[in-house]
């Protein structure tokens, strides 16, 4: 009997909560971990821990040196998505865990400002108070006007579901890396351009100063210099130094791609990949990235300006927007990538996992999957995956793992495999020269690190950056857990995940930090760094002097890069303190309209001044930004005005689907909503090339329709079975009718039963009006044919009659079918007209599963050696044939005509497997000499 609370659970959560849970307690060791949020009541799909946003979104924030952490934009750019969620607050949170940004541009050991080519850091953090968990991807962009030339940014994937973040970490990391790489490439290009302008300015200034000095020299030739003259000379010297410095910077930034290339082919591949994407997606012609140096060529139109020697500290200067920092094309491309990410990880975790497992399994069936699977999409994504995660020697989701993952999803990849992959990747080198020493230095360094020390280091960093004891908790870092023993898990988590791994990770960290940020996991650089080393220096391993304090290795390396310049630079730096920041400050001074209150210069996050106490400011440059403003404009009213307790679930159909109505979790619904949303998204962000990821929804909808119509066909026609048998056994089915729409619809529906010859396309011709030819039957297995009135159409009918041996004919107008007899058991299972299945998509899935089963039979049959070849020389063909027959009948349980279906599929498998290049050789037309029968309603 259904009791009241069962019903109530779906209507009101609070009442269900009151229902006492009174089962006798099991001993601890036998108990299955309960659903994490069971204590909060609710079904598994209920709003998790009171998150204030309705569904996952991506947030881009900046740690502005003027106003501190501030949100820049969200994807999707829709107020409904993040609802009342405090973006400013969360920006503060996520920016404060970025400890890499503490490395400034002017390390003590070197004379010149050096660019840190910093690897991105990837952190997972949770804020249990806000109910938000985030994958945070920190990156730095270069800005000549910024402090230390760097602008720290981060992209965060924010979700209410902690498991989702944890389990999709690899995927998120790979996808965000692409976005980041795109952004950084554009930024380097822009930065180089900026440097060139600056150099021209400086050059011009020098010329002017020089002339002035000469004039002054001539004016007083008394043998001593006036103070004015000395000042001029100093000024000139400073300008010249500045020129050298900027030249050096330009060289550094220009050398970046080459360093990367040299350093690791993997990285270069990745860069190329993103750039390829960029060039594909950009609507305008995109400069070819391979000629990377071309990007930095100067723009001739620029007229140099005079630079004033004394610059004022100007905090009223306008910082560049994100779009200005990058090339517009790259920025657009990045946004496209981000919305792709948003799209990709949309929906419930179980849906993501299922589809991932599905894809992995499909990939595994590489021999048979071409037959019935709609493979274009899967192939794409698989390829993408493989490309995106090259450093891993083992594919991201080995099939076995994903199978294990099914019942109890585990967190991330197993540490072991991750570690091994890290070890297997050679340490990236920038120059051949000094490779050995560099490695040595690194090795000694890393070995000298104690894991515990690492943690302390990290911890201090955390403490430094977080001023208040808020509810943020460090749950774990990637490498430290690898080092730590797993047994030390005494305390229980507030969020008890099932596998122990998580627990140990999490707890070990929380107890140490005693701070309240939940940094669930960090993975600073892309698996290129030895484990120990990562913790101590998460930001920049393979780049130059990012770890200035470990100066030995760095300096060693630096010397090897460019000894002559180094010497020169040291001389220069001894004389005058660096002033380039100041001078650069003044260039973009025209932005007086800023209403942003002046703030003390935001130093690095690690300096424990009051960065956090400064309230995050809204970004107000309306004239400048486009999406940036839009996002924040949308964001702010929601934060200020909208009532609390936004019924988030109601807003988002996707989430509704995931949460309440389980029966609605069908593909067709899903496809519809997603497609709706994607269309909304594309209208709201018209700058984003929506064509970048065209697959998904349309094919889903197509499947649904096809399933629905197939179901209709099965119910409507009592002779559906022989028709489907014809398709499955490779006999061309001609659908004859007068109405094109009707014929097309049925052909589309029936095409789900047509085995493909290759990955490319199904052998289906939707509509023909000319008489058929023998070649058509060789090429197509399902044809929609127009019925033409007798005088004209006699030819068509005649050929149909002549080639009746090769075809089955379904006459839609007279509701008749002419085809061979079918007496098997397979098709009735596949197409039961009394089926309880109501939905097209469900039926489609049913068909897919049945056909997959059939494929496996065909596979067994085709790949069993002794079934096809004689076991010894004396065996005759008849014996082998007898063995085949008995295998088909007894082992595969096939009766009558089902044998022919499996035989046909086996032939296709053989053909596909033996083909050198799939699709090159044409398939033969196979047929049987069997009589046809006429079926009529």
């Amino acid at each position, binding site marked *: 009997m259904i009791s009241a609370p069962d019903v109530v659970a779906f209507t009101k959560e609070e009442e269900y909560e009151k229902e006492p849970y009174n089962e006798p307690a099991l001993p601890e060791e036998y108990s299955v971990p309960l659903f994490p949020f069971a204590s909060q009541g609710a079904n598994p799909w209920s709003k998790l821990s009171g998150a204030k946003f309705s569904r996952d979104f991506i947030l881009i924030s900046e740690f502005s040196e003027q106003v501190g952490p501030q949100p820049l934009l969200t994807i999707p750019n829709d107020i409904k998505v993040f609802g009342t969620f405090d973006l400013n607050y969360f920006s503060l949170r996520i920016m404060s865990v970025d400890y890499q940004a503490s490395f400034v541009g002017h390390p003590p050991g070197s004379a010149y400002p050096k660019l840190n080519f910093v690897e991105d850091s990837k952190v997972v953090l949770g804020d249990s108070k806000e109910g938000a968990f985030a994958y945070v991807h920190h990156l730095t962009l270069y800005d000549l006007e910024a402090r230390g030339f760097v602008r720290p940014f981060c992209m965060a994937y924010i979700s209410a579901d902690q498991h989702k973040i944890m389990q999709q970490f690899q995927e998120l990391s790979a996808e965000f890396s692409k976005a980041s790489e795109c952004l950084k490439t554009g930024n380097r290009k822009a930065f180089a351009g900026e440097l060139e302008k600056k150099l021209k300015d400086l050059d011009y200034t020098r010329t002017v100063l020089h002339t002035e000095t000469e004039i002054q020299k001539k004016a007083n030739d008394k043998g001593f210099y006036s103070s004015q003259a000395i000042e001029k000379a100093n000024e000139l010297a400073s300008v010249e130094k500045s020129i050298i410095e900027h030249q050096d910077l330009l060289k550094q930034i220009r050398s970046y791609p080459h360093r990367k290339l040299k350093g690791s082919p993997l990285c270069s591949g990745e860069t190329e990949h993103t750039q390829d994407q960029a060039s594909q997606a950009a609507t305008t012609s995109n400069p070819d990235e391979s000629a990377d140096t071309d990007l930095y060529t100067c723009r001739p139109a620029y007229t140099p300006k005079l630079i004033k020697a004394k610059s004022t500290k100007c905090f009223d200067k306008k910082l560049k927007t994100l779009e200005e920092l990058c090339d517009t094309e790259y920025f657009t491309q990045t946004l496209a990538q981000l919305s792709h990410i948003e799209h990709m990880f949309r929906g419930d975790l179980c849906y993501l996992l299922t589809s991932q497992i599905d894809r992995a399994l499909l990939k595994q069936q590489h021999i048979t999957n071409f037959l019935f699977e709609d493979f274009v999409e899967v192939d794409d994504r698989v390829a993408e995956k493989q490309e995106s995660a090259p450093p891993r020697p083992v594919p991201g989701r080995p099939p076995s793992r994903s199978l294990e993952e099914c019942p109890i999803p585990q967190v991330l990849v197993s540490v072991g495999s991750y570690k091994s992959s890290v070890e297997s990747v050679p340490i990236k080198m920038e120059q051949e020269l000094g490779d050995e020493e560099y490695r040595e230095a690194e090795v000694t360094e890393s070995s000298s690190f104690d894991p515990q020390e690492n943690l302390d280091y990290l911890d201090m960093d955390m403490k430094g950056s977080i001023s208040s004891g808020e509810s943020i908790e460090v749950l774990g870092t990637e490498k430290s857990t690898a080092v730590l023993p797993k047994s030390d898990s005494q305390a229980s988590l507030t969020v008890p995940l099932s596998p122990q791994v998580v627990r140990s990770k999490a707890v070990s960290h929380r107890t140490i930090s005693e701070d309240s940020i939940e940094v669930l996991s960090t993975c600073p650089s892309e698996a290129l760094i030895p484990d120990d080393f990562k913790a101590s220096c998460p930001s920049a391993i393979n780049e130059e002097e990012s770890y200035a304090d470990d100066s030995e290795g760095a300096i060693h390396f630096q010397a090897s890069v460019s000894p002559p310049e180094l010497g020169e630079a040291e001389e220069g730096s001894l004389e005058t303190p660096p002033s380039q920041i100041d001078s650069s400050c003044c260039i973009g001074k025209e932005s007086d309209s800023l209403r942003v209150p002046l703030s003390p210069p935001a130093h690095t996050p690690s300096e424990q001044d009051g960065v956090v106490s400064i309230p995050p400011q809204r970004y107000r440059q309306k004239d400048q930004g486009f999406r940036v403003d839009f996002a924040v404009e949308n964001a702010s009213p929601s934060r200020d005005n909208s009532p609390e307790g936004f019924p988030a679930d109601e807003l988002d159909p996707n989430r509704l689907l995931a949460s309440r109505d389980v029966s609605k979790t069908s593909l067709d619904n899903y496809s519809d909503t997603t497609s709706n949303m994607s269309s909304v998204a594309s209208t709201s962000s018209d700058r984003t090339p929506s064509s970048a990821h065209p697959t998904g929804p349309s094919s889903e909808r197509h499947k649904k329709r096809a399933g629905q119509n197939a179901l209709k066909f099965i119910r409507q026609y009592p002779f559906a079975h022989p028709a489907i048998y014809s398709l499955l056994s490779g006999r061309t089915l001609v659908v004859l009718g007068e109405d094109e729409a009707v014929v097309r619809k049925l052909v589309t529906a029936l095409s789900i039963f047509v085995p493909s010859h290759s990955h490319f396309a199904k052998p289906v011709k939707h509509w023909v009006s000319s008489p058929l*030819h*023998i*070649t058509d039957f*060789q090429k197509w297995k399902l044809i929609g044919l127009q019925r033409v009135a*007798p005088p004209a159409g006699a030819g068509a*009918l*005649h*050929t*149909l*009659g*002549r*080639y*009746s*041996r090769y075809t089955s*004919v379904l*006459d839609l107008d*007279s509701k*008749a079918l*002419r085809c061979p007899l079918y007496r098997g058991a397979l098709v009735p299972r596949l197409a039961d007209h009394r089926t309880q299945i109501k939905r097209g998509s469900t039926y489609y899935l049913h068909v897919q599963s049945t056909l997959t089963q059939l494929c496996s039979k065909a596979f067994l049959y*085709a*790949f069993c*050696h*002794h079934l*096809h*070849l004689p076991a010894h020389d004396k065996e005759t*063909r008849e014996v082998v*044939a007898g063995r085949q027959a008995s295998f088909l009948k007894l082992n595969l349980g096939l009766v009558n005509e089902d044998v022919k279906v499996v*035989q046909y599929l086996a*032939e296709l498998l*053989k*053909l596909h*497997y*033996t083909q050198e290049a799939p699709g090159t*050789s*044409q398939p*033969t*037309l*196979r*047929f*049987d*000499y*069997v*009589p*046809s*029968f*006429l079926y*009529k309603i």
Partner: protein
Amino acid sequence: MLRWLIGGGREPQGLAEKSPLQTIGEEQTQNPYTELLVLKAHHDIVRFLVQLDEYRFASAGDDGIVVVWNAQTGEKLLELNGHTQKITALITFPSLEACEEKNQLILTTSADRTVILWDCDTGRQVRKVSCFQSTIKCLIVLQRLDVWLSGGNDLCVWNQKLDLLCKTGHLSDTGISALIEIPKNCVVAAVGKELIIFRLVAPTEESLEWDILEIKRLLDHQDNILSLVNVNDVSFVTGSHVGEMIIWDILDWTVQACECSFWDPSPQLDTQQEIKLCQKPDDISIHHFTWDEENVFAAVGRGLYVYNLHMKRVIACQKSAHDSNVLHIAKLPNRQLISCSEDGSVRIWELREKQQLAAEPVPTGFFNMWGFGRVNKQASQPVKKQQENSPPCSLELIGDLIGHSSSVEMLLYFEDHGLVTCSADHLIILWKNGERESGLRSLKLFQKLEENGGLYLAV
């Protein structure tokens, strides 16, 4: 509107109109050809097929191109472009002895009055001759003498290097329609109604020149000679437009036997061993012969006849084997015969001894009144003909191949790869034994699997 559809499953379309044609239903258990491959390369009627080696063949036709194919895979290997008009003859050419590379050569001639020697391995045009006065209609290679002959309005003799050695005078405006080699350095040329025997004189001590001499003219045929073949060491056969088939002695060129009128429906033997079989004059032209050790198979009009050389009589016939003229026939092993016709069909026949009970000859058209595809049942049919005249064997239809939409010009049988047919619908179809192909594919699959290291022995 859809009468054929409603008319029931079993009968093929051609049966709607009444015809005396023997038919077979869809159940053809003896027909091994269950796979076909359509080869498309030509733009006009494909008339000639010639086998190059175990796995290759060449096709040629009215579009002037020659295409070399792989008979196993159906892959197009080469396309030889050189002729500007339709090709009129095509033969394989034995490799030059002197030549190092043993490439397969073919000789083609065309209505553009050229002869081209091709290398079928490279597609190279080896040599070309274009000094002809008329269109060459036939070519023949005399391997013993290392020469080849071309027959047009005159007969020319060439050496391997395509130098003209000698030629006859103008023979006829219609030209030579067929040429065969017979012993004693002689060739037989069919020119209109006449057979002309020429002797080739090879260079000797006295004369360094080649010469060709007309030895004899045979005037026994009443009408144009359409076909001329060597059947064995002692005889050759000619067939004419009016249905005369004459078997000649190969050495003294005398008539051994003559079947000169196929039109009499009641076959009777006379002193000349003439058998008259055919009904209508327009039906009795003899288009093609094929032969084995004991029989000559003739395509006479729409029908097929089997003439036994020992018994000197027709032992089996099928008067209306096709709807239209039979253009080409080929002998298969296992006493099978394949015929192709202008009606676009290809049929497979089997020569069977008649059972004693069924010793009566039965008009072939008769079967059709008694149900379709029940050819085996003729034993119980009524007896009408005299015992002694009845042929002792019968040609049974065991399968038909439907694919071409226009007249099937020629067919070529490969022992290992199946059957090739070419047609006026510009297509070539490769018919294959599906069972054997499946086995071959399995073999290939396991070979590849082994190469990839994916083959494991079951415990």
